[in-house]
């Protein structure tokens, strides 16, 4: 008899996550193409430069909507508590898998919570500056350079986060991705990574 799995993410949460995830990857690819002449060939994925220019902001709109949903869905769980602060103090042990010295995390650990807040901030920057870049003829060229600068900077942050996020969610912590694919995780995984949440589940 198989071990009963714990329900971690609802269908809607997963959809939202993947919308944001997939659109971000496409946006990053086309964005890099616009930023780095050597990567301009990436626009080919969307049908060439003009098509990429046209689609990038439209896909960006979808990304923005996803970000907003994500924020609404998860914001209540993302405030840091006392244990989270302790967790952050022991982040070195978390990285080296020195699990005993890491205070137990709830449904999300403090790193994930911070990740959430930073990505939300980046999302706002993407949406606002992206709007300016989408229709420069409406807002005037004066804003364009500033908007570009901020948009690029946000991209860097986002790109770096993507690497960390994907690495941790797949290779570093096997079993994690399952939660975002099937929506369920094993009790063992939960106990290891989110002991307090796991305990909650069991109590119920």
């Amino acid at each position, binding site marked *: 008899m198989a071990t009963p799995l714990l329900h971690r993410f609802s269908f809607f949460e997963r959809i939202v996550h993947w919308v944001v995830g997939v659109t971000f990857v496409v946006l990053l690819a086309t964005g890099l193409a616009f930023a780095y002449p050597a990567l301009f060939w990436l626009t080919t994925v969307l049908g060439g430069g003009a098509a990429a220019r046209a689609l990038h902001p439209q896909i960006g709109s979808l990304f923005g909507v996803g970000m907003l949903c994500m924020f609404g869905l998860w914001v209540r769980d993302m405030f840091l508590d006392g244990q989270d602060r302790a967790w952050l103090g022991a982040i070195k042990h978390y990285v080296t898998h020195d699990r005993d010295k890491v205070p137990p995390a709830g449904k999300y650990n403090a790193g994930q919570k911070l990740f959430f807040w930073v990505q939300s901030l980046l999302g706002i920057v993407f949406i606002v500056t992206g709007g300016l870049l989408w229709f420069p003829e409406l807002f005037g060229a004066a804003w*364009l350079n500033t908007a570009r600068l901020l948009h690029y900077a946000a991209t860097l942050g986002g790109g770096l986060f993507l690497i*960390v996020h994907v690495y941790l969610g797949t290779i570093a*912590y096997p079993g994690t991705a399952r939660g975002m694919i099937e929506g369920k995780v094993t009790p063992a995984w939960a106990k290891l990574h989110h002991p307090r949440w796991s305990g909650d589940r069991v109590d119920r």
Partner: protein
Amino acid sequence: MPDTLAIKRISATPSALIPLNSLRSGGPVYSKLVDISKCIGCKGCEVACKEWNDLKVEQTTNFGSFQSHKDLSSNTWLLMRFNEVEVGDDLSWMIKKDACLHCEEPGCLFSCPAPGAIVQYQNGIVDFNQDHCIGCQYCVSGCPFDIPRFDKETKTVAKCNMCIDRVEAGLEPACVKTCPTNAIEWGIKEDMLALADKKLDRLRERGYEHAAIYNPGGVGGTHMMYVVPHGDRLEDYSLPAHPTASPGQLRGLNVLQRVGSYLLGFGVISAFVHFLAVGPESPEESA
């Protein structure tokens, strides 16, 4: 025979930063010279520009000026701007031919992310190639003179191309050909500078002590230069006093681009090193 259309820079390629020094260069470097003191504001150039380049007629309305359009557009690459200014006791009706100045260091080209959408030729002409334009309008923000205009229908940007098809055939641009008073001259840039000096002498003799040549160094000089009677009142001619553009003009962006590429690379490498060092952490599956 040097090639009149040898290329100097192509947008979004390494040549945007380091100009090509083609074997085919060494041909003539041209410039227009607009003598504002000789311009009568007849708009012949404006009409000739439209005729030659087959630009669409736009519905205009008089907005309280002799000026035909309020602004340049993707179908109006050349606009005569009229401005009445009191200079001391006298009135000056400043009439300026507004169009692309064809910078030696073209800010539009430096800003352009689309390879080949903007090309600078060794002869000084900066041309937009709409086939390669992606419509991002970064060139608009890159231009210190506010010249390129976006076409909402074609989703591309357009501006004066110095009638490059005429120049290639050994002719002068259409505006030069049309100008009834020879206020727009065309020739080798050095000759035009010499001519401008001569015109300056005459203007000073006529009492225009602040007369100046407009060939701003901030953009490496231009291939449409002006002889400006009131050189101390550039803003009244809507000419920026210190326009700048250089391959490094978007320094913030360049730094970010470089930092960004290292940072992303660093991210990937760090993850890999982490994997090798501490490996994955799997939960112990209880039976």
